[in-house]
C-alpha cells in the first residue's frame, strides 16, 4: 500500500503528463532533463530526443514572454513561456511552462493586418450594422468626404447622398445587396462641403454562419478627377475646338438618332449641308485669325436661329451641317433655311472691319429621301454643290427622282458591262423574204440578253440605258463581230446569208468607226462582199452629211452595204436619200402596221415606195404582221418584207430548218407580178378609210368614244373619188352604179345608228352593227372587183 506522499507524487505526475501546457525541467546549464507529452508535441520531438537538449536559461519569471519554437519542418509555432526556479533532487533547476499560442498569435496578426488595412487603405471604408447605421469609417473616408469619424458614426450613409441618382437606382442597389450580398458601380455623392464627387463603390454584406447579415462594408475610391478628365476627352472627341459646335463624330451620332426618331414619330427630318461662299478669300486676305473669328460669329448666329433639338455641326473649314428635326411637313424647313441664309450673309464685325460672306445650302429631306444617315449627308452635299452652281447664297433641294435615275443608269451600265464580260448577249436573226417567191434574201441580226434571272430580254429593255454611252459602242462592235462570225459559219456550210446589223448614229460618228470596222472585217477574212449590211438608225442625227456619205463610201469599198432604217420617220429623209449611198430603204414598221386602217400611214408607205423607185433603191417593209399587210404591200409593188407575220427573230441554229419549211401565204404567191398603177391606188385608200370609219362608229355606239365619225358624205374620200376620178374611169363599169348605191347605203345606215344612240337606244344601235358590217364588206368587195377587173 502506497503512502500518502507517494500517492500525491503519482497524482502530481499524472497532472503533469495530462497538462495541456508543455512543461520542461532544465538543469542549471539550461539542458532539458524532463519533458511532458505536451512539450514533445510542441517541439515535434519525442521525449528521448528532447532529453539532454540545450534549451537555455528561461528568462521569464513573473510575466510570461513569447518565444518562437523552431521545428524541423519549419512550420512556425509560438508559445507563451513562464519559468520558475525550483529544487529537484538537491539541484537548482528551472521549470519552463510553455503554452501553445500559435493560433492566437496568428489571429492577432491577422487582426492587426486588417486594422492596418482599414486605417491606411487608400480607399474610403464605411462599416455599418445590418440596419445601415455607420459603426466605423477610416481616415480616407474623412479625407474624401470631409466628415470626421465622430460625425459619421451613428449616421446613415444617406448623409452623402446627392440628387444625381434617381430613387430606382438605390432600390436596385439594395435589391442586389439583399439577393447577391454585394453591389458595385459608379455613383455620384456629395461631400460635407456640398461639392459633388464621383466614386467607384463596392458594398459587401458580411454574414454570420447562419447567413444573417452582420455588417455592410463599403469601399470607395474618389474618381472625380478621372471623370472630369473623361468628360474633357469626350468634349475634345465630340466638339469642334474652334466653334464649340458638335463635330463630325457627334453629328453622325445625332443624325442616326434623328433618323430613328423621325421614323418613330412619323415626322420629317431635314439635313442641310452648308458651305460659306467667299470664305477662302477672307482667309487669304485677312489671315486665319480673322477667318476663325468670322466662323465663330456666324456659327453662333446660325445656332441662335435654330430650335432646341436641332443640331448645328461644323465639319471643318467653312463647312457646316444642320439637322432639323420634328418637321410636320417638308416645307417647315423653309423658314429655317431662309433664316440660316440670312444669318450667314449679314455683315460680321471683326476688329474694325465689316466682313461679308454668304452660304450655299444643300438640303435633303428624310424620309422622302429614304437613305441612311451617311447617304443623307452625301445627298445634301450634292445638293449644296448645285446651290453653288446656281449662283450661291441660296439653298437647293436634293432631287430624289433625279438621283434614282442616275443610280439606276449606273447600275444598269454595270450590269450590262458584266453581261458583256460573261457573254450573256446573243444574236437572234429575223428573216427578210421575198413574199412572192418565198426566197429568204437575208436576215437582220437583233441582240437579246440572256439574263440569268429575267430570261431573254429584248433590246428595248436594256439598250436605252446605255444610249450614247461608250458601252453602247462596245455592244455595237460585239454585234458586228458576232454577226461576222455567224456569216463565216454559214459560208462554211455553203449558206450565203447576208446579215444586216443595226448601227446607231452615235456609233457611226465615232472617229474610230472605220478603223474598228476594218479591224473586225480583217479578223474574219473569208467573208464575201455584200454579206454584211449596216442598218443606220436615227438618220436625223447625222448632221454632217458630207462626212457620213464619205464614210459610207469607204465602207462600201470594204464590201459592206448600207440600209436606211426606219425610213419615213424624221424630217430630212429626202435629203439623206439623195446624199447617202444606201442600197436599201426600210419602211418603218409603224407605217406598215397602221396602213390598213389609217389612210395617212398608207399615204406615207406609198410615198416611200415611190421615192425608192425614183431614186432607184431597193425597199423592204418592216412590220408585216398579217397576210393582209403582205397583200397590200404586194399590191403596192413591194415584195421584200420582214415581220412577225413571216417569222419572229430566232437563234441561228433554227434558221435552216425554218427556211426548209416556210411557205409564203397563197394570197401572196397567187398575185400576178405587176406593180399597181398610180391611178389604181384610189380605191385602196377608199377601202382603208372605210375600215377606220367603221371602227370609229363602233366605238361611238359602244360608248368608247364621245363623237361619231363624220357623217357628212362630202368628208368622205370615197364619195369624192366616186364623183370625180372614179366617175371618169369607171362610169361605164357595170358595177359603178351599184358601188355608188352601196356607199350611200353605208353612210345612211351609219346616220341611223347614230340617231338611235343619241335617242337613248344604244342597244338597238349595237344590234344593227352587224348590218353595217355586211354593207361595208359589200362595198369593199365591190371596190376590189372594180380594181381587179382593170
Amino acid at each position, binding site marked *: 500500500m502506497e503512502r500518502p506522499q507517494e500517492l500525491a507524487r503519482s497524482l502530481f505526475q499524472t497532472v503533469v503528463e495530462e497538462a495541456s501546457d508543455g512543461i520542461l525541467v532544465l538543469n542549471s*546549464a*539550461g539542458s532539458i532533463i524532463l519533458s511532458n507529452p505536451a512539450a514533445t508535441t510542441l*517541439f515535434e520531438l519525442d521525449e528521448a530526443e528532447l532529453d539532454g*537538449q*540545450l*534549451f*537555455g*536559461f*528561461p*528568462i*521569464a*519569471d513573473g*510575466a510570461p*514572454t*513569447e*518565444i*518562437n*519554437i*523552431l521545428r524541423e519542418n*519549419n512550420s*512556425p509555432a509560438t*508559445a507563451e*513561456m513562464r*519559468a520558475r526556479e525550483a529544487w529537484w533532487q538537491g539541484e537548482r533547476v528551472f521549470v519552463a511552462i510553455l503554452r501553445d499560442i500559435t493560433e492566437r498569435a496568428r489571429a492577432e496578426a491577422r487582426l492587426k493586418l486588417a486594422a492596418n488595412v482599414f486605417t491606411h487603405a487608400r480607399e474610403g471604408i464605411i462599416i455599418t450594422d445590418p440596419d445601415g447605421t455607420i459603426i466605423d469609417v477610416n481616415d480616407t473616408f474623412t479625407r474624401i468626404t470631409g466628415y470626421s469619424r465622430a460625425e459619421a458614426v451613428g449616421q446613415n450613409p444617406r448623409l452623402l447622398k446627392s440628387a444625381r441618382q434617381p430613387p430606382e437606382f438605390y432600390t436596385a442597389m439594395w435589391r442586389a445587396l439583399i439577393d447577391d450580398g454585394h453591389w458595385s458601380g459608379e455613383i455620384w455623392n456629395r461631400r460635407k462641403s456640398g461639392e459633388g464627387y464621383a466614386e467607384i463603390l463596392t458594398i459587401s454584406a458580411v454574414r454570420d454562419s447562419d447567413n444573417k447579415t452582420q455588417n455592410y462594408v463599403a469601399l470607395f475610391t474618389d474618381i472625380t478627377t478621372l471623370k472630369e478628365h473623361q468628360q474633357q476627352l469626350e468634349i475634345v472627341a465630340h466638339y469642334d475646338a474652334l466653334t464649340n459646335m458638335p463635330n463630325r463624330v457627334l453629328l453622325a451620332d445625332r443624325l442616326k438618332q434623328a433618323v430613328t426618331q423621325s421614323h418613330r414619330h412619323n415626322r420629317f427630318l431635314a439635313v442641310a449641308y452648308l458651305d460659306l461662299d467667299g470664305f477662302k478669300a477672307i482667309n487669304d486676305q485677312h489671315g486665319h485669325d480673322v477667318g476663325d473669328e468670322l466662323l465663330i460669329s456666324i456659327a453662333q448666329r446660325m445656332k441662335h436661329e435654330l430650335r432646341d433639338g436641332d443640331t448645328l455641326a461644323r465639319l471643318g473649314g467653312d463647312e457646316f451641317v444642320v439637322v432639323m428635326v420634328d418637321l410636320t411637313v417638308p416645307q417647315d424647313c423653309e423658314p429655317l433655311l431662309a433664316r440660316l441664309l440670312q444669318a450667314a450673309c449679314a455683315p460680321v464685325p471683326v476688329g474694325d472691319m465689316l466682313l461679308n460672306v454668304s452660304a450655299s445650302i444643300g438640303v435633303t429631306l428624310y424620309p422622302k429621301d429614304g437613305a441612311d444617315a451617311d447617304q443623307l449627308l452625301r445627298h445634301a452635299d450634292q445638293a449644296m454643290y448645285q446651290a453653288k452652281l446656281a449662283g450661291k447664297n441660296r439653298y437647293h433641294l436634293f432631287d430624289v427622282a433625279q438621283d434614282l435615275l442616275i443610280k439606276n443608269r449606273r447600275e444598269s451600265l454595270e450590269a450590262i458591262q458584266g453581261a458583256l464580260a460573261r457573254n450573256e448577249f446573243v444574236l437572234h436573226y429575223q428573216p427578210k423574204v421575198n413574199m412572192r417567191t418565198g426566197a429568204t434574201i437575208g436576215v437582220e441580226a437583233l441582240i437579246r440578253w440572256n439574263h440569268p434571272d429575267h430570261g431573254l430580254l429584248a433590246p428595248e429593255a436594256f439598250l436605252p440605258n446605255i444610249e450614247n454611252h461608250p458601252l453602247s459602242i462596245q455592244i455595237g462592235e460585239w454585234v458586228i463581230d458576232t454577226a461576222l462570225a455567224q456569216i463565216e459559219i454559214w459560208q462554211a456550210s455553203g449558206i450565203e446569208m447576208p446579215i444586216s446589223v443595226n448601227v446607231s448614229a452615235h456609233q457611226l460618228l465615232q472617229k474610230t468607226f472605220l478603223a474598228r470596222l476594218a479591224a473586225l472585217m480583217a479578223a474574219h477574212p473569208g467573208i464575201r462582199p455584200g454579206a454584211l449590211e449596216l442598218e443606220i438608225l436615227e438618220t436625223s442625227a447625222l448632221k454632217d452629211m458630207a462626212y457620213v456619205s464619205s464614210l459610207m463610201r469607204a465602207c462600201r469599198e470594204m464590201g459592206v452595204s448600207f440600209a436606211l432604217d426606219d425610213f419615213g420617220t424624221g424630217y430630212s429623209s429626202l435629203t439623206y436619200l439623195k446624199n447617202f449611198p444606201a442600197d436599201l430603204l426600210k419602211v418603218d414598221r409603224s407605217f406598215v402596221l397602221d396602213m390598213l386602217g389609217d389612210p395617212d400611214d398608207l399615204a406615207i408607205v406609198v410615198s416611200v415606195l415611190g421615192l425608192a423607185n425614183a431614186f432607184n433603191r431597193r425597199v423592204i417593209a418592216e412590220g408585216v404582221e398579217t397576210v393582209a399587210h403582205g397583200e397590200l404591200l404586194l399590191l403596192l409593188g413591194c415584195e421584200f418584207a420582214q415581220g412577225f407575220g413571216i417569222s419572229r427573230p430566232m437563234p441561228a441554229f433554227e434558221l435552216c430548218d425554218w427556211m426548209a419549211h416556210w411557205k409564203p401565204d397563197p394570197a401572196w404567191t397567187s398575185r400576178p407580178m405587176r406593180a399597181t398603177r398610180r391611178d389604181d391606188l384610189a380605191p385602196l385608200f377608199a377601202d382603208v378609210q372605210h375600215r377606220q370609219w367603221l371602227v370609229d362608229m363602233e366605238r361611238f355606239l359602244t360608248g368608247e368614244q364621245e363623237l361619231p365619225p363624220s357623217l357628212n358624205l362630202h368628208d368622205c374620200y370615197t364619195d369624192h373619188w366616186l364623183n370625180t376620178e372614179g366617175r371618169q374611169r369607171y362610169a361605164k363599169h357595170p358595177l359603178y352604179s351599184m358601188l355608188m348605191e352601196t356607199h350611200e347605203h353605208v353612210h345612211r345606215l351609219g346616220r341611223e345608228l347614230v340617231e338611235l344612240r343619241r335617242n337613248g337606244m344604244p342597244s338597238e344601235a349595237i344590234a344593227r352593227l352587224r348590218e353595217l358590217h355586211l354593207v361595208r364588206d359589200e362595198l369593199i368587195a365591190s371596190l376590189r372587183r372594180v380594181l381587179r377587173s382593170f
Partner: protein
Amino acid sequence: MELYDNRIQLKLFIAGSSVRSGNAIANLKRICDESFPGCYQLDIIDVLQQPGMAEVERVLATPTLIKIAPPPARRIIGDLADKEKVLAGIGFSIE
C-alpha cells in the same frame, strides 16, 4: 589579437523581422553597450534566413542568446529586457 581574445562574443538567434525580434535586438544592444562598451561582438542570426545556423547550434526556440566567449558557453531564452537577468543568465554579475 589579444584584444580580440578579450572580447565578449555573443550570438542572438531571432525568427524573422517581427516587432519582437526588433525589441530583442535593441534590448541586447543597449545592455551590451552599457556593460561592455566597445569590447563585445554580437552576431545576430535570423533562423528563417539561416536555418542551418540554428541547427548547428541546436537552437530550439527564439529569441535565444548564446555567449560563446569567454567560456563557459551559456545560453538564455526569453525576454531580454531585464539587464540584470540577462547578464546573470549569461554568467556576468553586476558589481
